[in-house]
């Protein structure tokens, strides 16, 4: 059992390391993620922030050469174990990707997909509408639910992907640079949406945009990359504190733009 959970933390990574073959991509990361908060993972390219994110829903299982070591507690369950079915974990920890990736299906079928595969027994149309409303997309698409999702703009597609993730009613949504392929206006819409939905779900967001981390997140974790190209966690804390009073000089150097 795990003593740290008084309901305040939803995920707790302890000594997590990721290897791709002989290459150590991420070393010794320990990070607690607060429930119903937005946690941002920031850091330079190649620091392993996406790799860390993909540990939480076992997406690294899909890469044959990847090995994830260490313990990851989801509530009080250690999920980084071959005895835990990643399929079940992924229906409780959703994901939104860097590039909007709706299926080449209708808008309705995109949202309904997760419901159907997880054996949803309620009324699918109601659940689709509810998810699209939560993703602030309903008004724009309610008259064309049967049109292809690929006809939507990039920002709409990404909100559809968020609706698709929300439909399965996950406890956590992992977001891997969800706005990096979008224009500034669509980016703001996504950020607003993230702040809305965090009342019911916990969000972990990877971003290379420090302003974005400062704008949306409650907590920030800063990762760096060492001379062997291995990523590691430098500092983690309240976003305000990280940006105004970083404890580590490397964090300060990064957020003030002295290196990228």
């Amino acid at each position, binding site marked *: 059992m795990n003593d740290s959970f008084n309901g305040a933390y939803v995920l707790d990574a302890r000594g997590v390391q990721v290897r791709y073959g002989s290459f150590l991509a991420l070393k010794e990361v320990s990070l607690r993620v607060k429930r119903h908060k937005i946690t941002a993972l920031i850091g330079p390219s190649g620091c392993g922030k996406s790799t860390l994110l993909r540990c939480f829903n076992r997406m690294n299982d899909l890469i044959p050469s990847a090995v994830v070591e260490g313990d990851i507690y989801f509530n009080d369950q250690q999920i980084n174990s071959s005895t835990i079915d990643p399929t079940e974990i*992924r229906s409780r920890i959703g*994901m939104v*990707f860097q590039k909007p990736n709706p*299926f080449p299906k209708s808008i309705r079928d995109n949202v309904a997909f997760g419901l159907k*595969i997880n054996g949803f027994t309620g009324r699918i149309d109601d659940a689709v509408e509810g998810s699209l409303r939560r993703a602030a997309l309903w008004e724009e698409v309610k008259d064309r639910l049967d049109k292809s999702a*690929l*006809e939507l703009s990039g920002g709409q597609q990404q909100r559809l*992907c968020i609706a698709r993730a929300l439909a*399965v009613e996950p406890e956590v949504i992992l977001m891997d640079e969800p706005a990096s392929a979008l224009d500034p206006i669509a980016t703001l819409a996504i950020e607003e949406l993230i702040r809305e939905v965090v009342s019911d779900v916990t969000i972990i967001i990877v971003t290379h945009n420090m302003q974005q981390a400062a704008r949306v997140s409650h907590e920030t974790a800063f990762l760096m990359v060492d001379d062997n190209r291995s990523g590691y966690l430098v500092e983690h804390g309240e976003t305000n504190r990280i940006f105004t009073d970083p404890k580590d000089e490397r964090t300060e150097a990064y957020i003030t733009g002295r290196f990228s």
Partner: protein
Amino acid sequence: MKAAQQFRPRLAERKLVGNVFYVLFFAAILIGVVGLLILLARILYEGLPSFGAALFFNYPSRHPEEAGLRAAIMGTIWLMGLTALFTVPVGIGAAIYLEEYAPRNRLTTFIEINISNLAGVPSIVYGLLGLALFVQWLALGRSVLAGALTMSLLILPIVILTSREAIKAVPLTYREAAYALGATQWQVIRGVVVPTAFPGVLTGVILGLSRAVGETAPVIAISALVYLRFVPGSPLDRFTVLPIQIFNWVARPQEEFRSLAAAGIIVLLIVLLSMNALAIYLRNRYQAKSIE
């Protein structure tokens, strides 16, 4: 002015070289197109007098004015239908296994290379294999079923290869999105991979079938050069197909049968070209969709 001394632009010469190659390459395509046009014109000129309703409704006959393609057309339809029935599930299944399930090891690589090799095996070899395996060993006789099974073996490598390409072209991001929603491997394949790859798979099936329609050698081995005055009523009946009937007519001395053969070729070309057109249409629609 030093730079000007070190360069000799010779612009006119360089452009001339370009034009020469333009003309050469244009001539190259002309040879192919003109050859095809002459062939078509000759066949139309010879065949059109015999091209009429009788051609489609009459059985073959010793009297050219009464002879028709009915048995061959129905035989071709039977052969195509049964071949599609066997090829579609087996071809797509094999492609899905190789792309989605097969471990990346030497055995898989060996199988993959051999499927590519099989696509290049001469069709008469498949005909003899079918004769030994289906006609004699499985005792199916010289039936349309034996013919369809042989044709299936012949076109399976094509269907598997094109289906694999279509499955491989399904973006990783679609698969990741489905997995991230808690889909099992089969749900990802059934719900995302196969529907996305389907138009490409269908294109491969149609191209494979159009190859089967035009093949003569395996059918000669299975069915021999028969003179049939009936349409197959069951998969175990004897059959003939368009290329064989055409071959039969070409071999006769009378001028009238030559015209019939040309008319038969027109029918065969219409079938083949419309199947290829359908494949191109499906592929274009597929590409237009994935670009959006």
